[in-house]
């Protein structure tokens, strides 16, 4: 058992040194248009993929908090946040009214049977990826008030 733990730890620590590519998966947007994740990630501007769900309170708190400073972020870094909803068909209907009701200006993608979430091995929501030139530069899970500032520091670090 110990050996396995050491091996797992080694595997993960060596994994830290490399940035990953994004999987070749198509998702639909709220407008019904299909988007390829690999394609949209190949941008020299930073993209944030924020995995959330309508029932996840910390996710909504995080997106609400970012929404208040989002204009400033965009002005300074051209960053774009794409909110990927993992809501299944039970709560999927709530996405459109919630997003509009909250007046979020993010692009929303629907991962309703969690294909992308599974492919990226995401287990805990909220989960955030910072992506540039097709590579994942940073991954982060969970939200506490104020951690959006830390995200912005990372975005600034990777801009340019």
């Amino acid at each position, binding site marked *: 058992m110990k050996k*396995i733990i050491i091996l797992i730890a080694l595997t993960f620590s060596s994994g830290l040194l*490399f940035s990953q*590519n994004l999987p070749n998966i198509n998702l639909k947007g709220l407008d019904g248009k*299909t988007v390829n994740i690999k394609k949209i990630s190949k941008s020299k501007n930073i993209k944030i993929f924020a995995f959330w769900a309508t029932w996840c309170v910390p996710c909504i708190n995080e997106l609400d908090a970012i929404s208040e400073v989002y204009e400033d972020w965009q002005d300074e870094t051209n960053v774009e946040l794409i909110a990927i909803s993992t809501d299944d068909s039970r709560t999927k209907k709530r996405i459109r009214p919630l997003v*509009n*009701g909250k*007046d979020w200006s993010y692009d929303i993608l629907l991962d*309703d049977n969690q294909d992308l979430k599974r492919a990226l091995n995401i287990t805990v929501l909220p989960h955030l990826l910072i992506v540039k030139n097709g590579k994942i530069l940073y991954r982060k*899970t969970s939200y506490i008030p104020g951690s959006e500032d830390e995200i912005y520091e990372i975005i600034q670090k990777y801009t340019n």
Partner: protein
Amino acid sequence: MKKLLIFMISIQIGLILNAQVLENLTIGLESNTVWYNDDGETGPFFDTSNNDGDKHLRSNNYLKIDYNFLQNFTASVQIESYEPFALLNYSKSYEGTNLGTYSLNYRDSKLNITAGHFYSQFGSGLILRNWEDRQLGINNALQGGKIVYEPADFISLTALYGKQRVGFKTSEGEVFGFNSELDAAALLDFRDSSLDIGLSYVGRKEDTPFVNPTFDELTNLFSGRVDFYQNNFYSNAEYILKGEDAIKQGGQLSNRFITGGNAILFNTGYSKSGLGIDATFRRLENMSFFSERNAAGNVFNESSINYIPGLTKQHDYLLTNIFVYQAQSIVNLDTSQSGEIGGQLDLFYKIKKETLIGGKYGTKIALNASYWSGLKGDYIQDNPDAGTLPSYDVDLFAFGNKYFSDFSIEIRKKWTPNWRSIFYFVNQSYNKKIVEGSGQMITSNIGVIESTHKLGNRKSVRFEIQKLNSDSKKHDWTGGTIEYNLNSKFSIYVNDIYNNGSDSDTEKTHFFNIGGSYTKGATRLGLNYGRQRAGLLCVGGVCRFVAEATGLTANLSMSF
């Protein structure tokens, strides 16, 4: 165990040999371990499903590895370990360490082919959905093959075949599925609207246990759907027809009770900046559908082919989750049940900044209402002496016994840059007899106030106070939470709920939890000690009953 070791070593060697491999590798690890202790107040630890009171330490572990290669291929494996037994309340079919799922996928712009385990969903999932929820202990992936073919942008065709995963084994029954999705808006060149049409077939073939069966071993389901969206308005409708099949009554499959089923789902909404309205109607009649007929009604939701979530708001607080509705899809003549009918309404509104009520930062309001009842009609019991077969005859749009209703209002208010609050009120009626099998209707009012204060230097504190009053002497609950975030990595919390009512299962007992978490990047470690209330654990509208237990829990999750 040895196999796992060899597997890990080979991965390790692979990683060292080729750094490029890492760019195309994603790994997820989740480990949930509990030490169950004897509780002076609620009794000693005992696991009724494994008949065990000795193995206090239980652990559920999941390691998933996905590797992309040669541009178009992805290989995926998930190893699961439940040692020495799974956590309490999980199905016994999850036992030991083994390969849970594996698959090989090829994908190009037109074709998407999977061999091995796959997860698929047709429409809303009312006809077919394969999914995994580790918290609920659900993994009903199909093991077989799936082909998705997209000859043009506007059309997608799926064919699949498989046997369903049940623990580390597969189901007796076989599942066949075909699905077609047509993007009519692209085909007709609509500019500002979208129109999707979907048609599906799902068949389940399972040997019948009877010498002279009065039904076919193949059960057929058909589904048709339309999804429309223009500007601020959207609407979708789905109809499912389930062919004749034997019904399970009194715990046994009946060769005398043969009937079909159907489902209607309708959803419409309007939304614009600062406003959203959504309404859903759903009627289910005999829609439970399993890869093994005898699995119908099993408490672990194993072998379910379709997805029938309770369409109610998923509440987030301890006391709002005491009476949770579970969708009713089974046929039970004893309780005059053959399905459910009802609906749900949502309203989201943002009161603008710098207005009288909106204040400096605006105020966000969310309203939700749902109502569910049984199907009204005649239910006729089996009576071989009188020559009557069991049957039911229900009206299309008539509401029968009330099963559940829920009204909630949520107000989110930011007072200052460092202080925000949530006010939450819920009124619920819960038919305990229908949802849990015994009891009566309980109506409750629940109030919650949540407040978060940023203290600077990334410290913050969050409070919740909760109160539940009901018309039953058994339930009078009070609850609270305090959470303190030391920085963006460490967080600690304590919560407690207490029933001052006379419910024999929960009265005068503190269901408390104390814990903390450490998060760094995509790694999260949580520790928790506390007492779990017996009741329904629901995720995504699907529920599982969990027994009372006290213990120390460690959760680790990592993604790379």
